[in-house]
């Protein structure tokens, strides 16, 4: 039927136009996850917004054919993965390649500027290490280790056999751990990720 919304029929268009509230609810619930997923897949800076919009446009166009019994978050990640893959193939679409991440604004009054900078640096490091993984392994690693998706959902969302998903995850885990040891041998992971300053 539909292929990324390229053959929407009339009834589907009307259906979409009549469901703005549902689309908005999906968007509100998932936009943060989609943005962070794209970030972990390599999108940066200004590209993040454009690619996020593209993910949701495609998702909403495919929504009439979406199996509502499936989890929507892995499904969105699968779309994000394909959008990102297309963007990589056409590098001109990635205008912000190499752009540094803007420092996050600490909104928690309990977070000192030093601690906020430390958290920002840790997240930057994670993204930097993720960049070292090939996209297919990175996607599985990010979905399982960061998004908390199940292996079945991952295999389904990425359209790969379950065994392949496991294989990619195993290799990605080993590679990521090796990168941490090699590039940051003295790195001590913080046991507190809440953003609070333990020194007080």
């Amino acid at each position: 039927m539909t292929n990324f919304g390229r053959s929407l029929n009339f009834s589907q268009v009307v259906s979409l136009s009549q469901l703005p509230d549902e689309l908005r609810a999906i968007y509100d619930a998932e936009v943060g996850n989609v943005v962070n997923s794209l970030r972990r897949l390599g999108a940066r800076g200004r590209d993040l917004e454009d690619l996020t919009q593209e993910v949701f446009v495609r998702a909403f166009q495919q929504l009439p054919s979406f199996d509502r019994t499936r989890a929507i978050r892995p499904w969105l990640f699968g779309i994000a993965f394909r959008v990102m893959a297309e963007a990589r193939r056409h590098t001109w679409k990635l205008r912000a390649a190499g752009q540094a991440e803007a420092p996050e604004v600490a909104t928690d009054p309990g977070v000192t500027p030093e601690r906020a900078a430390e958290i920002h640096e840790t997240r930057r490091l994670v993204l930097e290490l993720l960049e070292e993984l090939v996209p297919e392994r990175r996607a599985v690693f990010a979905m399982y280790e960061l998004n908390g998706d199940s292996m079945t959902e991952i295999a389904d969302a990425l359209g790969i056999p379950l065994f392949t998903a496991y294989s990619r995850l195993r290799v990605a885990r080993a590679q990521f751990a090796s990168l941490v040891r090699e590039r940051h041998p003295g790195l001590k992971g913080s046991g507190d990720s809440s953003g609070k300053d333990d020194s007080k």
Partner: protein
Amino acid sequence: MSDSSLELPPLDANVEALLRIERERPSVSAAQAERMWSAISVELGATAVPGVAQASPMGRAASPVQSTVVSGIGKLALLKALPWVAVSLGVGSIGGFVAGHRTAGSRASLSPVLKERETTPRADPAPAPQLVPIPVPLGAPPASPVEPPRLAAPLPSVMPAAVPSSHVRRKPTTRSDDELAEEEALLRQAESALRAGNWSTALAEIDAYARRYPRGELAEEAAYLGVRACQRGGDATGTQTRLLDFRRRFPSSPLGKSADD
């Protein structure tokens, strides 16, 4: 972490600590979320139309010139560009527009920009664009200030129902309704061809309009449609030419500004 039939060994403590911080990465700001939602609504309204298949900016390869246009369309997330998209959608509802001219009481189907154009002499400086992404029936209750932009209805069949135009204060126009209706009819043909993917036909209709109405009320809309037709047809040179012409003729156009990015 999640269900798995295979037992996965735990991660190294340092790696786990790193990933825990990344897992708690904050979401996007409310302003950023709203900006993207506006663009998504616009994009859906512009693309979720049968026969208009390739408006998705990531859907296919395109030249840098096309990317400029596509990027510009993507930048319609900026509030300043929304009225222009309403124009593009409004051209799609020319049926309602024509009805609005021919039948008193059908004015609700006019796009906001077209309404503005109709009630404001061309010589007057254009007022600042208002954030009105989709037409709202006149006389309807005012929208809540926090109400998010709604998905624009892309087809005339789902446009808001006509309401009496007793609240509309019309200024005298310099062109007759019949002339304007003729302009609309020409653009409607072009827009229909554009929806059907007949780029050359659409361009021919647009050019016919331009020849017949070089100073037409809908000249900007026609020029804009010309850019889009070339862009969707994959004509990079034509896109560039028409884009430059559009900027030259309508330098204050929000679309022209966004296309500069």
